[in-house]
């Protein structure tokens, strides 16, 4: 690859960072962990960028790297035999919303955190990234029907969690890691 291509990649990568950071925060529910993941993602992207064939795939390619890093993080959490608290973002968001809305914000963020990663992932790609189902299917390498069923289940579980009202900060469960590796 030429120096020009390398420079172009650096420019495009920097341009993607705000959106990638936002996605990471929403996915993992913890600002510090999200920034660590984005930093690791940058390192991996800089090592592997020559494998990126098309410009238009850059955002999805970065999200895939980030997602894999997050799964690795979850596995490490399990191997260390500890529960990883990831509820701090709820508190950050609650502080930035009007006082009367703070409790609802906390409930919503904790409801999101109660979902499995694959459900949160699809909810965020549709809701936050505004992606079409077919593009999500391509990015995740799954059939569009699976995207739709994950979305339906994810939203249903989010609603149940909100209506149930018994929400607590999410902990990473080994069961979730098994689900991700299927």
């Amino acid at each position: 690859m030429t120096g020009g291509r390398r420079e172009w990649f650096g420019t495009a990568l920097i341009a993607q960072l705000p959106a990638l950071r936002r996605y990471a925060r929403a996915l993992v529910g913890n600002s510090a962990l999200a920034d660590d993941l984005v930093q690791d993602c940058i390192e991996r992207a800089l090592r592997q960028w020559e494998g990126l064939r098309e410009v238009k795939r850059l955002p999805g390619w970065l999200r895939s790297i980030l997602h894999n890093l997050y799964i690795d993080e979850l596995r490490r959490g399990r191997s260390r035999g500890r529960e990883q608290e990831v509820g701090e973002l709820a508190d950050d968001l609650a502080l930035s919303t009007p006082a009367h809305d703070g409790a609802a914000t906390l409930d919503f963020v904790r409801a999101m955190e109660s979902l499995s990663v694959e459900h949160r992932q699809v909810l965020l790609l549709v809701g936050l990234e505004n992606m079409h189902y077919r593009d999500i299917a391509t990015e995740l390498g799954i059939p569009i029907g699976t995207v739709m069923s994950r979305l339906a289940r994810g939203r249903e579980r989010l609603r149940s969690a909100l209506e149930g009202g018994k929400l607590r900060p999410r902990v990473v469960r080994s069961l979730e890691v098994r689900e991700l590796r299927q």
Partner: protein
Amino acid sequence: MSIKAELRDEDVHALIDDELDETGRTRADAAIEAHPDLRERIAAYRADKARLVSLYGGGLNEPLPREWIDRIERASARRPWHGQALGIAALAASLVLVLTGVLAYRQFARPARDDVVADALAARADSLRPEAVIPVASERVAEAEAGVMTRTLATRVKAPDLSRMGYRLVGIDIYSEPARSFELRYRDGEGRIFTLYLRKSSGTPRFDQFEDKGLRVCIWQDDVIGTVMAGKMSAAEMQRLASLAYTGLTL
């Protein structure tokens, strides 16, 4: 008959996300009409979706950690080639050939100029006279123009679909001066205009964003094409539009 029999859960969510075709929408509307509780359920899902965006959708304007930018810029800078004697010798030998080629090429092709921003803003302000003005009333016109742009720019491009950000392509202006270029005009529901000026790159990768008299301008150039995007909007909105436009530009 149960609601599920009439409308699958997946279709309920496809309705919320505007992913149903006309037949599906008609069927969904009929099911909602017949079941007020379904209407309430959908309203709750829509509220959850909006809540998700309002809670997590910010932060695009937050400054990035400086070490991230430094790391990327260090890694993506052109590598120095001093000390590579063999490479220098080869470079010197080929320089003569390259210069000959460049001189020959310049007989036939005008090199892209560097003041792409000035030209783009002049085009947006109608200070430049376009060679052709093409209203885009259908997908077919846009596809035909994609062919013209592809041939002119010598790389496969198309007018990006910005509809998910509320912008619709309404016209393409073609310029022959000061460089062969295109201005894609988009309009949103409030009549705001977003322009995407496009031409061959001068070769220097650039990414920059600034505001000038209320107009947000984003320059995004790789080593093949140079784009200048402009519109009256926030930095965050431009960030999203520019990302969507740039990635959607290539096929």
